[in-house]
């Protein structure tokens, strides 16, 4: 029981790099490799793909990721846990089997966890949308997907059954990492302190490079060695829930108190009450110790009883985003960009698009920091006007970019580099379901 468990993170978002995951599988000396590949909207998009083709609807890059890691599962006993099943874990299972056969991996047990898809449940119920109070069912055909955040508990049966690959749909990100800890250390599902401690480590891992130097570098202020080859993280977990965050020696990036601190509070509201399906984790007294050589020890994370209900993420069609951009340079660039913005606003208003629904910003000046930037920084020599609006009607959304593009001939002097686009918007809303209304299931198949 004193041996530590090494868990790696192979992806922190749907489109993440694949080579760092291969490095982890090859040289990380890890027992588990978890891929977090499901942003809030990814599953709604996958649901549309599944509707068009029942064999699709799994996450992006499933094939590439499985081709890269399945040989390690078969040969070294590496266990892969991932939410790449997205809207269709059974289809992901079939695809993974096909890849295993093609690669000739030899015997491999693969599991798919379903039950997170609660679209029919919420459409039949009276549950309100948390943000608006309107019943979920009133969203009608605008509602594309409804997925409950499952916890580590849903993954455990697959691990107990000896699956080397576990494919899920929506699972809370840290739960992907917590499940192997619970399984290997036989943690009690009601030992809130252990689950809180494991969740802290899972939270540090779940965004991959964000704890090893990604999303961190600020040249001359916070330097990161060889960010171009940044390594993905590993947690060495102790049976008591403490652990060390590290990475494969020789990879780029860094693990130190600063990278770990920033990631500890990433996307956290109240640090003493981080809610997951598994536990109410408490990071408010977490202790970090720099052990040197890219190793940081994490301890004193805690936990309390898990929330009674499960959070459900709703993917909702919400019209179209129309965008247009055009640039101005040299003296007076900012004034010309502003003038151009006013022209577009006037034209859109005349076409029935109210001013207050249109976002006008100047990239290179105030697009990201608004009034703070206007106050603090000098006028740029490059000013790129961006006009954007979310509109119910596609044709109206297209008009936004068209009016920006028309500035070439009709706007201020020296307008260049126009771009336009109009694309469907999927918004994400929330509802909650009592646990007993969410049933999970495991399907197991064997590669020959």
């Amino acid at each position, binding site marked *: 029981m004193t041996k530590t468990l090494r868990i790696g993170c192979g992806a922190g978002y749907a489109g993440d790099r694949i080579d760092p995951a291969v490095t982890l599988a090859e040289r990380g000396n890890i027992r588990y490799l978890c891929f977090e590949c499901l942003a*809030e*909207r990814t599953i709604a998009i996958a649901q549309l793909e599944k509707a068009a083709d029942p064999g699709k609807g799994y996450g992006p890059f499933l094939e590439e990721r499985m081709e890269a890691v399945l040989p390690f599962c078969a040969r070294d006993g590496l266990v892969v846990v991932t939410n790449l099943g997205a809207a269709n874990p059974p289809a992901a299972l079939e695809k993974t089997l096909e890849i295993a056969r093609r690669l000739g991996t030899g015997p491999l047990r693969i599991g798919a966890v379903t039950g997170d898809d609660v679209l029919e449940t919420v459409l039949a119920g009276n549950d309100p949308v948390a*943000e608006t109070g309107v019943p979920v069912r009133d969203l009608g055909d605008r509602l594309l997907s409804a997925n409950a955040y499952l916890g580590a508990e849903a993954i455990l049966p697959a691990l107990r059954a000896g699956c080397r690959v576990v494919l899920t749909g929506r699972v809370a990100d840290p739960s992907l990492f917590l499940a192997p800890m619970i399984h290997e250390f036989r943690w009690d599902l009601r030992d809130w302190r252990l689950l809180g401690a494991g969740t802290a480590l899972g939270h540090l891992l779940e965004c991959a490079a964000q704890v090893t130097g990604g*999303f*961190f570098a*600020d040249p001359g*202020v*916070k330097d990161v060695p060889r960010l171009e080859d940044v390594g993905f993280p590993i947690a060495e977990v102790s049976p008591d829930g403490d652990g060390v965050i590290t990475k494969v020696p020789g990879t780029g990036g860094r693990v130190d*108190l*600063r990278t770990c*601190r*920033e*990631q*500890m*509070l*990433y*996307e*956290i*509201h*109240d*640090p*003493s009450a981080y809610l997951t399906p598994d536990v109410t984790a408490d*990071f*408010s*007294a*977490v*202790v*970090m110790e720099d052990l040197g050589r890219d190793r940081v020890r994490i301890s*004193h994370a805690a936990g309390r009883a898990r929330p009674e209900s499960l959070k459900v993420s709703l993917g909702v069609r*919400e019209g179209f*985003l129309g*965008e247009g951009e055009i640039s101005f340079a040299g003296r007076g660039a900012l004034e010309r960009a502003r003038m151009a913005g006013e022209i577009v606003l006037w034209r859109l208003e005349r076409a029935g698009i109210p001013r207050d629904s249109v*976002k006008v*910003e100047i*990239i290179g000046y105030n*697009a*990201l*920091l*608004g*009034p*703070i*930037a206007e106050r*603090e920084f000098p006028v740029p020599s490059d000013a790129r006007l*961006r006009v*954007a*609006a*979310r509109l119910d009607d596609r044709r109206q959304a297209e008009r936004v970019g068209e009016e920006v593009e028309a500035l070439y001939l009709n706007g201020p002097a020296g307008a260049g580099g126009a771009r336009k686009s109009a694309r469907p*918007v*999927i*918004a*994400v*809303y*929330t509802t909650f379901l009592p646990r007993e209304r969410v049933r999970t299931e495991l399907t197991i198949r064997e590669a020959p």
Partner: protein
Amino acid sequence: MKRKLHEIAHGRAGDKGDITNVSLFPYRPEHYALLREQVTAAAVKAHFGDMVRGEVLRYEVPSIRGLNFVLHGTRSGGVSSAPDLDAHGKSLSFGLLEMEIEIPGGEG
């Protein structure tokens, strides 16, 4: 003397829909007390002005010398439907780092 937060602290922004959190950590341990004293929720709300429509909450995590600011109403309608260029608000940490604080005696 007045200094920009960027000179003495670092942090990271993340989103949950229409709510953005920004963490803040001093480079030097002795500056944590200054941050606690001067970078209050009210000061951060004033600093961001119209960019934050709702309230600003502040949480303290002294064991890692961190402050966590939760800014309500930074995006119009949450991540996926916000028309903003940075729909997630991930760049807002550098907005906070533009804030000025007073460092006694011009040390540091």
